[in-house]
């Protein structure tokens, strides 16, 4: 079983458009939506939830003000600035380390584990299996939830003898991206020929080399700035990342999204044949 992660660095370059089309084109893939704090794949694939798993993130401190003497030790030791002047815990700030509870001389602090989100095993309207999740608003631990989604996807793929897991990744280069990339066979970076696209592509390529993951590049909207598109090609070459596709600036992705379809279902034209060609190249690299 192979794992392909679709990432981008910069957000909004077309990761989900590409991943959802690959999901339709691949015969036997499980899809994992790892952009857990802004998941969109379900809007195109309309999943029916088969089973649901509660996700518990890090615990959060809670101060019993009946017991608290306001000695200030917790506040002094908290490195995350999570205890305010009224000796209440700012739950958004708390990272659940437990230091405040440890130093409290009055035993006024407890650590409470709350449900931080849900992970789902689903079957989509196309019969494809989808692992996805919803992180609670303002919750920490998106990296941990991504690991849960990936575990679910691997189990579903094993049970159904799928040969590929298609992972729709988050933007950025930090915690969430690292959790998405760990142990994948290949990364496809979707970029665009803009000054931010190219800057973020370079950082994304540095991340994939840092973790020794081979990378491919897709240039979306390549025709809004062809000179910049050539720069992207040169940069990708110098990082040994093959350009597997160039997609034109087109309204089709938005139109398809509005009717809740993937682009390869919605239309059949040069845009979609470009995606199909890109998919065959990716398949070849993955040796599927």
């Amino acid at each position, binding site marked *: 079983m192979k794992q392909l992660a679709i990432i981008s660095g910069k957000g909004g370059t077309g990761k989900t458009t590409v991943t959802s089309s690959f999901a339709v084109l691949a015969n036997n893939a499980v899809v994992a939506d790892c952009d857990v*704090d*802004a998941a969109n794949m379900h809007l195109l694939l309309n999943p029916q939830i088969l089973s649901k798993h509660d996700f518990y993130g890090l615990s959060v401190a809670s101060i019993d003000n009946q017991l608290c003497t306001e000695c200030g030790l917790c506040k002094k030791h908290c490195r995350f*600035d999570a205890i305010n002047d009224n000796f209440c815990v700012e739950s958004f700030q708390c990272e659940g380390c437990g230091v405040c509870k440890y130093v409290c001389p009055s035993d006024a602090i407890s650590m409470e584990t709350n449900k931080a989100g849900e992970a789902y095993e689903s079957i989509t309207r196309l019969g494809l299996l989808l692992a996805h999740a919803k992180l609670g608003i303002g919750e920490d631990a998106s990296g941990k939830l991504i690991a849960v989604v990936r575990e679910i996807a691997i189990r579903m793929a094993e049970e159904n003898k799928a040969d590929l897991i298609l992972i729709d990744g988050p933007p950025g280069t930090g915690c969430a991206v690292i959790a998405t990339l760990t142990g994948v066979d290949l990364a496809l970076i979707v970029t665009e020929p*803009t000054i931010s696209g190219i*800057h973020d592509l370079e950082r994304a390529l540095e991340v994939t080399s840092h973790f020794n993951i081979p990378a491919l590049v897709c240039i979306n909207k390549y025709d809004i700035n062809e000179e910049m598109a050539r720069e992207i090609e040169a940069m990708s070459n110098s990082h040994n990342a093959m350009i597997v596709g160039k997609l034109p600036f087109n309204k089709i992705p938005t139109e398809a999204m509005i009717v809740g379809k993937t682009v390869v279902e919605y239309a059949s034209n040069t845009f979609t044949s470009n995606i199909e060609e890109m998919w065959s190249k990716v398949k070849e690299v993955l040796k599927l």
Partner: protein
Amino acid sequence: MKIAVASGKGGTGKTTVAVNLALSLQDIQLLDCDVEEPNANLFLQKSVDRVEDVSILVPQIDDDLCNCCGDCVAFCQYNALAALPNKVMVFESLCHGCGGCKLVCPEKAITETGRNIGYIEKSSGNGLDFYHGILCIGDAMASPLIQRLKCYADENKTIILDAPPGTACPMITTLKDVDYCILVTEPTPFGLHDLKLAVEVVEKMSIPAGIIINQDAEGYSEVEEFCKSKNIPIILRIPYDRRIAEMYSKGIPFAEELPGWKEKFREMYEQIKRIIE
């Protein structure tokens, strides 16, 4: 006054708004808090100086003093410590720097040392104070770097914070203590879905918010209906315009080139000021 520019979905135009707004006003401080992908200076083209290397404290274990009791390993919530038969190992990249292990160690075998997670650069001049943080490649600790970056906020100025995408910890860290949040969205189902999540965040944090519809075009009115139902004002619309997209691709802030836009950004700012007051 602190104004954050955020969105749920990436690529909706946060940086475009933050930069164009900053360039339309006087006496501004702009903090680019998207430390994983800091892009604002690609549009400002300012020469920057490094002001600080940012590190978090991670434990260092003195093997001669450590008797492998395992108290630190049991205390660590992040799996950053592991007990081997005759040694405790530290996995620095997992450590959040809470300092708990040092507190619980009965042998006083733990000291702390800095681990570099990124750096902060600044530039000033032309009425614009600019700072950004850059997270080291392969590092997961965006939030501590954002927190450090926010320490440079100059309360005498109007401060604009360009937030990272999503609704998780880096975005929350950026939004903490701001007076107003501009949410940038696009009129698509993905844009709306992620806007709803971002609105939940600002509601939970009790931050007043207004919405900018970027790449505004006919064909998907659900975003407006949502704003109406939530009673959140639409404070600006930026049209779907290939010229703006092309300028963006080259790193040109469109308000510098297209007439009338600086006034629109200033009017929006006045509107925000009225709402806050």
